[in-house]
């Protein structure tokens, strides 16, 4: 029997401006029937492009410039449009990253789901709705009838993703493509959705192409794994083998970026991969990973390594057997959370807390009714501490951050003190020194940076707060940029030219520009990829080290 998806020597190029950029080079992979295949890699490495190519649905400026794509044994590139359309409705389904955007906001769920059955099975009206309700109960939605009458915005992110999955599975496709299906979801909801996908996989026996930046998720969900780097498949094999004994230095490096439970901030920094992800297609005639590889030799920089098979694992490296040397020794060790060091507790009793809140409450008025977002939060934080606040979305983390920063005004009776001084509730009323003392690294770096300003300007404007001008400002700016590992070149770029991880580093540099004492960090590392998600953290720590600061970490 033919494979559910077979990609042979696929090249995909994008045309930007007048140049062609090859984003996928010589990609070959096969997904057997009933198998789940995971494709991992940093953002920008071509994962999503591979997914869209698999249903021949590339952006207008993209095209398949070589190779073959076979779905169910049929060559996608030679199918007439009508057949291609039928294949897309019946044999392949795709679940996208952002469920909110994949649903039409102005149509009820029932209408949108019925449409799928009308197109695929020719059902009409009531019959289509009945099938939709049936599908919803299969994705464990308790009251299908109610959900069918809802608009997308009336559902939570997890529910929306279930609806999408139900729609994707409704035609019982041979191949289901999941493009980062849980990226935008809370950890608890993510676990539920993953569990649902795993259960449905058992039940429907579809083949799955699972695209993710999360190694943990892929290891949990997939039978086989392919690791994509700069448009090339650098390693492929059974999930257990690839993660257990990596045969490519990149995979090994990725594994070292994953923080272990219980490792404390002062027990060594998180490993990062030095250097930057090269632009896809910018490297040819040598190994794509050579520049960032710890074991690269001259040979790696002169010729491109061919794909070799080592004990069932494909690796595009000259030294597949040496990759394991790089895997972190004892990564899984020290699992138990270590108790707070005695010294840290000792230092507490001696001094005043840096930041404290008394009875901090916030009530919002939602269509005339009061909604309490935060109730009598009392916290004491000492200099040098990092406080992690954990909670699902909607639990009040953002409200607390906004109150501390003075971006929203708390209820009467609430009090925030900084170094023994009561802070005015509104940021606009705070003194420069107080503003300087509390800074934030925002969750979404895309929204946090003004898109019309260069990096130099973004960081520079914050340096005015500390009264730095002219040459002194430029020097401090370079210092800050270097401490978050931004290069000279980045300073004159605008946010849209930067990747998510780089944007976050700019946000961190900016938050530290005034040398704050307390820093609020609404981390959402999941929103970025492993490589960059991790390295923003030690970067922040490097920048923060000298000042003896306090961190509030929201996750």
């Amino acid at each position, binding site marked *: 029997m033919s494979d559910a998806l077979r990609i042979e020597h696929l090249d995909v190029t994008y045309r930007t401006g*007048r140049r062609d950029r090859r984003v996928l080079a010589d990609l070959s992979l096969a997904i057997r029937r009933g198998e789940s295949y995971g494709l991992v890699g940093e953002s920008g490495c071509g994962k999503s492009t591979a997914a869209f190519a698999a249903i021949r649905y590339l952006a207008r400026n993209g095209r398949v410039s070589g190779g073959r794509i076979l779905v169910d044994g049929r060559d996608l590139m030679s199918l007439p449009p009508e057949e291609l359309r039928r294949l897309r409705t019946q044999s392949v389904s795709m679940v996208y990253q952002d469920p909110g955007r994949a649903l039409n906001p102005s149509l009820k769920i029932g209408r949108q789901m019925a449409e799928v059955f009308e197109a695929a099975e020719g059902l009409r009206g009531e019959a289509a709705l009945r099938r939709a309700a049936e599908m919803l109960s299969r994705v464990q939605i308790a009251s299908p009838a109610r959900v069918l009458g809802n608009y997308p915005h009336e559902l939570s992110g997890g529910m929306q993703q279930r609806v999408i999955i139900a729609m994707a599975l409704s035609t019982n496709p041979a191949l289901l493509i999941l493009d980062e299906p849980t990226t935008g979801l809370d950890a608890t909801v993510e676990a539920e959705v993953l569990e649902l996908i795993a259960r449905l996989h058992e039940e429907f026996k579809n083949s799955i192409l699972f695209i993710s930046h999360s190694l943990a998720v892929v290891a949990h969900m997939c039978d086989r794994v392919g690791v994509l780097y700069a448009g090339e498949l650098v390693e492929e094999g059974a999930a257990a083998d690839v993660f257990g004994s990596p045969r490519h230095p990149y995979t090994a490096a990725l594994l070292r970026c994953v923080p272990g439970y219980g490792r404390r901030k002062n027990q060594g920094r998180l490993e990062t991969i030095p250097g930057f992800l090269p632009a896809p297609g910018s490297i040819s005639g040598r190994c794509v990973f050579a520049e960032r590889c710890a074991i690269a030799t001259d040979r790696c920089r002169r010729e491109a390594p061919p794909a070799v098979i080592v004990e069932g694992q494909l690796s595009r490296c000259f030294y597949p057997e040496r990759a394991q040397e790089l895997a972190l020794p004892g990564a899984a060790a020290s699992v138990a959370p270590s108790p707070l060091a005695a010294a840290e507790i000792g230092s507490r009793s001696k001094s005043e807390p840096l930041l404290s809140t008394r009875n901090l409450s916030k009530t919002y008025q939602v269509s005339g009714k009061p909604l309490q977002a935060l109730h009598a939060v009392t916290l004491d934080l000492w200099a040098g501490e990092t406080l992690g606040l954990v909670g699902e979305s909607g639990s009040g983390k953002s409200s607390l951050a906004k109150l501390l920063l003075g971006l929203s005004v708390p209820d009467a009776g609430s009090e925030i003190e900084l170094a023994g001084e009561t802070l005015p509730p509104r*940021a606009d009323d705070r003194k420069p020194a107080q503003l300087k003392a509390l800074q934030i690294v925002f969750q979404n770096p895309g929204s946090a940076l003004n898109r019309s300003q260069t990096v130099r300007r973004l960081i520079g404007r914050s340096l005015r707060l500390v009264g730095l001008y002219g040459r002194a400002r430029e020097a401090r700016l370079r210092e800050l940029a270097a401490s978050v590992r931004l290069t000279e070149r980045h300073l004159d770029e605008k946010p849209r030219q930067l990747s998510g991880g780089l944007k976050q580093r700019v946000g961190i540099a900016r938050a530290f520009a005034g040398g704050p004492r307390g820093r609020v960090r609404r981390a959402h590392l999941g929103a970025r990829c492993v490589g960059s998600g991790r390295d923003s953290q030690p970067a922040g720590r490097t920048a923060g080290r000298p000042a003896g600061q306090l961190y509030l970490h929201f996750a």
Partner: protein
Amino acid sequence: MSLARERLHAALRSATLIVGLLILAFWVVCAVFGSRITPLDGYADDLLATLSPPSSVHWFGTDQLGRDIFSRVILGARDILIVAPLATLLGTVFGTALGLVVGYLRGTLDDVVSRVIEALQALPLVIVALMALAAVGTSNTTVVLVIGFVFTPLIARTVRSAVLVESDLDYVAAARLRGDGAASIMFVEILPNVLPIAVVEMTVRLGYAIFFVASLSFIGFGIQPPSADWGIAIAENYSLIGSYWWTVLFDAGATASLVIGVNLVTDGLASVFET
């Protein structure tokens, strides 16, 4: 590649934009060179050749005073191409400033201004402008001022809604947290990001402004004789349209082509800014 260069490439590929710009450029050349490129003197009466149909001498015929219509159509581009863009620019500058202020500060000010804008929009703009011009007297300057003020609330509303979206982005919070004042946040942080919207809105309004000025001229409250303005020409001759169609048709066509040219540019720009 920089955003500016990418947009330039998109602009050069947009047929809509290019055609619109060519039409616009044609009329701008007419407006700038005026009497230096007309084949005949557009202001000279010729009482022996009144209302003569298009011919090899008078390509578009002559009017009631025997003046050459082809030359007058070329001359007529000048006043409208001064008055309409200036009025639009005035409305855009004031409208953008107003939209920024009420959109960022919100609160009572926003409520009051927004209601006033809505009330103004309920009135027919031509009537409002007519009353204002009747009160202050008609001249090119007053026409510019009156249309500018009539357009201000319209542009303010568009800019305000864009500012509302921007204000919620974290970079605005970041600016507040480093102690930037309201004026600096509005004009340094937010303005560059809403400028493309204001520019597109401005070109939309320019199309309307041309029509607006022509209408006012037609009823005698816009550009004043002896200008060869198209609206005046249409007003002087529309009673003759049954027998002497050329006295009206070419001026009307000129007005229409200018509005179409501006609208094509608008569509082209909007799609360029979307990229």
